[in-house]
């Protein structure tokens, strides 16, 4: 690729026009209010952490976080009611943020997930109280102390608590709200990092089994940073190809409708830039959704992270990352569908099959749920591949349905405990149905929803994505999906068998009685699972109305 002189002259002209003034950016604060509310709450949380006395922080942080999330949800609903999800959809903040149906739908979902997650983070009834009688949560008393050291013991004795988790969560939520709404690749990259960095830290904060937790954080961080580097290099290549990073601009260049410039004529002649760039962006996103072959981190991180954080990560990250994937593929790169679709076919098939088959061999509940989340990423990908409006609405619906099942399932995992903390080894769950029928039945319901049994939300979601895929002609994908559902059903059923038909062990775990926080979280999970299973029409319709991207 040689550079013609015209480009140099272009450059010279651009550089010499120094008299131009940069216009003040025009920011639509109202339309960005969901994100602003959450980031505001996060900043306030940091201030509270700095200035409030330790004993007041817990309730203050919960209050701030909840206020921010409720405010964000109200903002989303108001924006949707004003028609921003439909006719008034447009680009805000100088084209950096799309305020449209998919954005608002996913932002609403993420905020609700965050509400339930914050309830889980706030749980202080499960761990035995500290020696001074202070209630204790699921996080390390002081993250900086070395596990097993005197410093840690004295921190635990004084009843310290890592209340920083709330502002960290709020920053992560803010990034997640921005990620699916980002309308240029730079905003998308920044959002990716804004939600990833707090998650790396949250992973390292478990109170019990801190070595596992730190190990999970290191793995997640190194692989996460590795994948973001791929995303960034992909961004650079796409910028090189299209000369712009805005979603609409890329789409124009890719489909050949952009105003041709000599530089563009030169770079767009080189399809390698486009294809390699898209592939690298895809690596970054597929890593976040946990699709095979970029799934290796999922089981370790899910197992090591504190369980409430795992639930949050498994649901919210997936929602945000699939949202961004949809926007990228549907709004920026529809012009090269025929290039990326075969690759995604392969990824989806691999993800479904590998996730389902490896899950069969798992012996740890959290790892099992991790592999199940990989298999579900595959199911969602079949909806993404559909490349039609039904595909978008199906994916949106599936994400909402799936995330509440996941939250509920991980919340149940926090309840089953023995002396060493949570009893996550599957053999310890034997006979749980005899000992605590209600908890076991709730978990069984979530497992049945994962398996996609009719009258649960999992079935409605699976039906929606498979139907979208089938109507776009991807029948083989649907058949692979159905077969791997059968395999997946096997291991969910295995857990149910274990809980109900095995004899309880004499030294088996006990089921802790949670506070109202976790109880609410689980109840919400059950409610959404059954509600979206039996009466999905309203939400399907909502997702259908919200399925048009603006660019």
């Amino acid at each position, binding site marked *: 690729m040689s550079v013609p002189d015209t480009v140099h002259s272009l450059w010279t002209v651009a550089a010499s026009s120094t008299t131009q003034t940069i216009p003040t950016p025009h920011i639509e604060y109202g339309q960005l209010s969901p994100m602003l509310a959450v980031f505001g709450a996060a900043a306030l949380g940091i201030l509270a952490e700095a200035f409030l006395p330790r004993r007041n922080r817990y309730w203050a942080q919960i209050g701030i976080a909840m206020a921010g999330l409720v405010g964000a949800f109200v903002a989303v609903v108001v924006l949707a009611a004003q028609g921003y999800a439909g006719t008034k959809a447009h680009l805000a903040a100088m084209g950096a943020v799309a305020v449209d149906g998919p954005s608002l739908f996913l932002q609403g979902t993420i905020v609700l997930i965050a509400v339930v997650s914050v309830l889980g983070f706030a749980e202080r009834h499960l761990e035995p109280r500290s020696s001074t009688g202070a209630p204790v949560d699921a996080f390390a008393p002081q993250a900086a102390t070395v596990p097993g050291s005197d410093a840690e013991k004295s921190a635990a004795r004084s009843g310290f608590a890592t209340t920083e988790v709330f502002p960290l969560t709020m920053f992560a939520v803010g990034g997640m709200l921005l990620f699916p709404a980002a309308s240029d690749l730079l905003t998308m990259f920044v959002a990716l990092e804004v939600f990833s960095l707090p998650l790396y830290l949250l992973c390292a904060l478990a109170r019990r089994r801190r070595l596992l937790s*730190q190990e999970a954080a290191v793995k997640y961080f190194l692989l996460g940073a590795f994948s973001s*580097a791929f995303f960034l290099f992909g961004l650079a290549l796409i910028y090189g190809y299209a000369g712009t990073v805005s979603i609409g601009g890329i789409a124009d260049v890719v489909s050949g409708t952009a105003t041709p410039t000599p530089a563009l004529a030169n770079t767009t002649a080189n399809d390698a830039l486009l294809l390699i760039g898209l592939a690298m962006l895809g690596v970054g996103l597929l890593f976040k959704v946990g699709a095979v072959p970029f799934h290796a981190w999922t089981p370790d991180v899910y197992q090591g992270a504190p369980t409430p954080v795992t639930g949050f990560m498994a649901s919210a990250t997936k929602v945000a990352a699939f949202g961004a994937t949809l926007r990228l593929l549907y709004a920026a790169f529809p012009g090269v569908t025929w290039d990326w679709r075969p690759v995604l076919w392969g990824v989806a098939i691999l993800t479904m099959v590998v996730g389902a088959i490896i899950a069969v061999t798992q012996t740890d509940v959290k790892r099992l749920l991790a592999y199940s989340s990989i298999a579900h990423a595959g199911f969602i990908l079949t909806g993404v591949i559909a490349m039609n409006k039904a595909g978008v609405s199906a994916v949106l619906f599936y994400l909402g349905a799936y995330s509440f099942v996941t939250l509920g399932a991980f919340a149940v995992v926090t309840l089953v405990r023995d002396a060493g903390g949570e009893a996550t080894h599957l053999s310890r769950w034997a006979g749980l149905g005899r000992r605590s029928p209600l908890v076991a039945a709730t978990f069984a319901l979530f497992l049945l929803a994962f398996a996609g049994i009719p009258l649960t939300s999992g079935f409605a979601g699976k039906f929606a994505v498979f139907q979208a895929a089938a109507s776009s002609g991807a029948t083989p994908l649907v058949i692979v999906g159905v077969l791997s559902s059968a395999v997946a059903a096997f291991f969910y059923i295995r857990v149910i068998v274990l809980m109900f038909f095995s004899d309880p062990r004499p030294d088996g775990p006990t089921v802790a009685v949670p506070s109202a926080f976790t109880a609410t979280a689980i109840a919400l999970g059950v409610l959404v699972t059954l509600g979206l299973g039996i009466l999905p029409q309203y939400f399907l319709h909502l997702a259908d109305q919200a399925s048009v991207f603006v660019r």
Partner: protein
Amino acid sequence: MNPVNYLYLAALLFTIGATGVLVRRNAIVLFMCVELMLNASNLALVTFSRLHGNLDGQIIAFFTMVVAAAEVVVGLAIIVSVFRTRHSASVDDTNLMKL
């Protein structure tokens, strides 16, 4: 000089970084390799900015630097806390969880 050569350099740096992440075992070195990849991206962005004659790429490079700095803060915090626990920064030692 033809600016395309900078792209070759960027690609080379990125490849070195990626290879380093895959073959090296020390968490700090791994992390430095990731930084190398980010900087390779910066170089590519700046070069493309020159090729296209617009400033977007250079602005993105600034953003990348800020993001990379934040990443260093978080990453070093995690790696240091693991190091203090285990007195080792080798990623081969962090193997409590296996399939």
